[in-house]
């Protein structure tokens, strides 16, 4: 390893032993493993439409906070009863210097500044989750612990892997079901299917299941569900499980990402999309459609 790894925060933990750890979001995202570890998001970034160069850049420089990000994170924290403080900024427009200072101060101390309407929205979302019979059972206080950071070494590649579970259920009777909360525009099954493809959620599922199995927290029957919630009234909730074939594809992609990561790490070469001149064709569906138009 000749590469410079991002510095973990001075007060942050240094992880050298596999296990379950309590830490803040920032500490987790700063990657407390000396020499680096691969997260589920990182694994998805390594594969198309991302590439190793993009992954490496984000690993070294982090991601900028975005507005959408804030709302999702806020809802997330409130639903799980953890996460950063939510600050209601009493202004619909953040234009004046006074308000801007207030917003900056909130961000400075790690809180999430929200406009009154957003603040209201986030609280209603959390209430809708608590009203939903299945979702409320998944995240009920006595059923597990929120925001657990898991670190383990991949058997096949020797790569350090990490996962931050929204919720780590305590093993009761029956199998372990790991829930993951996602806020979305539409929780209709077709929209969820598109989100799974676009955001690679089918890679997150087996990644987290691997984490739990690797650390002996759950057995082979461990499974995973997504709790999708719409960001607009009535804040509908849909709890879904991915089918076997989809999860298998996700698992294989994770394998591919792990081996790419190991190779890039060993050679310290993080290629972009391609070193060659690539041929580009229309997406298959458009090609079919436009061919028919011509004929």
């Amino acid at each position: 390893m000749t590469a410079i790894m991002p510095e973990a925060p001075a007060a942050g933990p240094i992880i050298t032993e596999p296990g379950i750890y309590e830490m803040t979001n920032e500490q987790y995202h700063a990657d407390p493993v000396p020499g680096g570890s691969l997260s589920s998001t990182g694994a998805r970034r390594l594969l198309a439409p991302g590439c190793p160069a993009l992954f490496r850049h984000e690993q070294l420089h982090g991601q900028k906070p975005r507005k959408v990000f804030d709302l999702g994170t806020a809802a997330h924290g409130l639903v799980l009863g953890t996460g950063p403080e939510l600050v209601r900024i009493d202004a619909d427009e953040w234009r004046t210097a006074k308000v801007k200072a207030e917003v900056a101060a909130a961000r400075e101390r790690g809180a999430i500044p929200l406009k009154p309407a957003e603040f209201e929205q986030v609280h209603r979302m959390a209430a809708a989750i608590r009203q939903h019979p299945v979702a409320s059972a998944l995240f009920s206080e006595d059923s597990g612990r929120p925001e657990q950071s898991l670190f383990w070494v991949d058997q096949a590649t020797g790569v350090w892997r990490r996962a931050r579970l929204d919720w780590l259920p305590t093993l009761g009777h029956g199998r372990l079901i790991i829930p993951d909360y996602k806020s979305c525009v539409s929780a209709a099954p077709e929209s969820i299917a598109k989100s799974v493809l676009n955001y690679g959620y089918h890679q997150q599922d087996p990644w987290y299941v691997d984490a739990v199995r690797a650390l002996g927290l759950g057995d082979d029957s461990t499974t995973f569900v997504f709790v999708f919630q719409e960001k607009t009234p009535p804040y509908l909730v849909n709890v879904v499980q991915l089918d076997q074939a989809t999860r298998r594809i996700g698992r294989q992609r994770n394998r591919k990402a792990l081996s790419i990561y190991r190779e890039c790490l060993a050679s310290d070469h993080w290629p972009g999309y391609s070193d060659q001149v690539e041929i580009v064709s229309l997406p298959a569906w458009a090609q079919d459609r436009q061919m028919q138009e011509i004929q």
Partner: protein
Amino acid sequence: MNYPAEQYMPATPAPGRVGQGTAVEQSRAVAEVQAAVMVARQFPRVEAYSISRMSEACKQPALAKRAFYSFPKGSSTVAGETIHLAKELARCWGNIQYGLVELRRDDEFEQSEMQAWAWDMESNERVSTTFIVPHARWANGKAQKLADFRDIYENNSNNGSRRLREMIFSVLPVWYIEQAKDLCTATLKHGGGVPLPQRIAQATSAYQARGITTEQLEDNRGRKVANWTDMDLAQLEILYQSLQRGEVTPDEAFPEQRVTAAEITRAVPAQPGQGSAANQQGGAE
């Protein structure tokens, strides 16, 4: 300019030395083929007999249960007729010869060259296919090399019998095969006259013995035991045979049980003020 042909024509490759046993075997094979063709011409098949032999065979549960295979692959199901049915139909049709030969086993390149063939001696229609079988098995998403001779033999015969089945089916008339399939399906549905509930009980307990729960069977069929039809049971029997023969693993055939709302809510005691009113929220389930 004409030249004697021998000057250009390279000699056909032939083994350098043929042992006496081989020589005898060679001439015997030639005689045997001639005799078989002669006999086939003298005693042509009578189609009526062939059909009645076939329908008799297909009425036997023992054959019907082995006639089809079915296993899930990815999100779809692969299903079809087995080599057992092909061989039985060849026997009933008559005057058909078929075979599977390992032409050469190459340990250096770790592959076997094989040939499967089928021959209708009356019409002299002969089909054959030559193919390469690598000494490897696809498992866990990668090719695993086979070293054990027995494994190689098993692998070759598995790959070969699939080709042989295709060869046999290509010399049999399509209508004959279709008729046989219908009859086998009917036999499976009939189930030897045992009442359906009793057969369902037998099937579920047979699966139980293999560690497969009734819930998994219901997931596989997409309906509750109480609503199973003859056809559901026939499918489960086919799948059971496929499991027994190792064509499919229990994990592939019966993916883990789906998570249900009841399972989640059962695991956590409902808290006051939750549950019944929640349904009005319209959460999709």
